[in-house]
């Protein structure tokens, strides 16, 4: 379990993280979302004691990271794939990391096997591709068989097989009762992996909820309707909570009323309906709705 209380980090006069409080539960995969510059990485760095908070505190299983007696056996960390000396082979990197905790060669071989880097383990890490570097970082995080895993963008640069492996692996770890906190920009991937989501924006917690509850709260179900007598149907469904948006001639997106009600209404009025599709919101929709105001580096709309 990771508990952050009023965690704050300022760099000069810029506040990267502002009074952030959250709890990452064990037995779940918690997704850490937010636009670039939202403070995700800084928060993760504070959890593992690389950055000192300006104010507030954060503990792992009730203890500040710097006071853990066997950090690698309690917390596995992947902050970025480049936290490896480029002149050292992957195997020697893992051996050196393992040695700090008296972890033997057998376990080093095990994590090499597990992450599928056996064929390149004796090459220098500087020659690794992004994906291989990512696997090496995950291997290092697993060395101590930790109860808590903190993975910053673990699937960044991985091939589809690797992405699926990470998803199944972290689901498996959570099922064993471990704590998993991972960040990703791939919304579809996060939707399939996370149980719980914490969304950061401009250094503040924008949302902290079960994934399904978050999607429900921040998206609306829309119903796509295609009909030759659309205007009559639109007039019939209109109500205070109902919005009808014309998408193209003969087609509209209606929110605030279920597909079943629209179908029933059309049948009772004898209006032919050519298409009636119910669309649930996605995590991406919820995320964009939530962070719309908090995006620091906004891209220009393509018109």
């Amino acid at each position, binding site marked *: 379990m990771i508990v952050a209380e009023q965690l704050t980090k300022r760099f000069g006069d810029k506040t990267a993280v502002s009074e952030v409080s959250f709890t990452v539960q064990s037995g779940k995969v918690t997704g850490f979302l937010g636009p670039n510059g939202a403070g995700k990485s800084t928060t993760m760095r504070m959890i*593992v*004691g690389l950055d000192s908070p300006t104010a507030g505190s954060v503990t792992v299983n009730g203890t500040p990271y710097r006071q853990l007696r*066997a950090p690698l*056996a309690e917390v596995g960390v992947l902050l970025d794939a480049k*936290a*490896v000396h480029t002149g050292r082979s992957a195997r*020697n990197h893992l051996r050196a*990391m393992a040695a700090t905790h008296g972890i033997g060669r057998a376990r080093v071989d095990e994590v090499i096997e597990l992450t599928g880097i056996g064929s390149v383990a004796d090459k220098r890490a500087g020659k690794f591709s992004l994906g291989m570097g990512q696997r090496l970082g995950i291997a290092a995080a697993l060395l101590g068989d930790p109860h808590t895993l903190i993975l910053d963008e673990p699937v960044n640069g991985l091939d589809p097989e690797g992405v699926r492996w990470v998803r199944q692996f972290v689901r498996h770890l959570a099922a064993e009762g471990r704590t998993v906190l991972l960040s990703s920009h791939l919304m579809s991937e996060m939707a399939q992996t996370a149980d719980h989501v914490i969304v950061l924006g401009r250094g503040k917690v924008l949302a902290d909820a079960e994934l399904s509850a978050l999607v429900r709260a921040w998206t609306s179900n829309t119903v796509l309707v295609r009909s030759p007598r659309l205007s009559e149907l639109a007039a019939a469904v209109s109500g205070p909570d109902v919005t009808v948006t014309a998408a193209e001639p003969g087609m509209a997106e209606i929110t605030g009323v279920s597909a079943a009600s629209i179908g029933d209404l059309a049948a009772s009025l004898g209006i032919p309906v050519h298409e009636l599709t119910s669309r649930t919101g996605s995590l991406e929709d919820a995320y964009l709705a939530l962070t719309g105001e908090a995006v620091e580096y906004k891209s220009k709309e393509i018109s």
Partner: protein
Amino acid sequence: MTALATEPATRSRTTSPYRLTFGHLLRSEWIKLVSLRSTWWSLGVAAALSIAISMMIAGASSSFGPGFPAVSAVLSPTQFTMLVAGILGAIVITGEYSTGMIRSTLTAEPHRGAVVVAKAVVVSALMAVVTIATYAVSIVATAPLLSEGIDWSEPSQSIVPLAFGVLSMVAFTLIGLGFGFIVRNGAGAIATTVGVLFVLPIVVTMFTMAGEGWRWIVDLGQYLPMNAAASLTTPGGEDLVPAVLALAGWTLVPLLIGWGVLRTRDA
């Protein structure tokens, strides 16, 4: 049973056999040091340079006239090899900053003081061993070239200057390590180390020509690392305490500042 039952049932604490200890940390730093090519390049260059220059000096020693202490042939190359030692010390830590390895190091061992001490111990030990081996080869290689061999019956002409030579090489390495921890940037740390070890003594020498008013700078210059090491490795030297203290100060102060920097700044 009751004692066990009151223990919090956190899985990792009860079952993990792994422990972070200083001994384990030393082992880790040792693996890191010897698994980099740059370490062996530095040590190889230092050893080759040292042995080759020793042989050159020994070969020319007959023209120096009587009274040239044989052990000086072995120790004189230090004024060149000290730079390699300083650079090795610096890159041991700056290489971790430039590659990002430092973040892995500090998540495995969050006690930053322990990281400084472990690195210092490991790199000192390796430098000492390699220097002793280099001296041994130099002694054997120069023996046929010297008209008068090393007088082993007189410690002040043999084992004492040699021991101080080993100590000086270790000190130069640690000076580089200290500046590496402070500056973090490879080029900056190497420039600072070379400046202190090599350039400052030359600057001080220039003041000997500047007249009596600048005498104090020349006097202070005796306490620069290279000059302190030179007095320690001169056979038959007397009153070595100030030189030992100077060298110790140059070694410990940058390391202490480096530890302070590591402790207070974000990695």
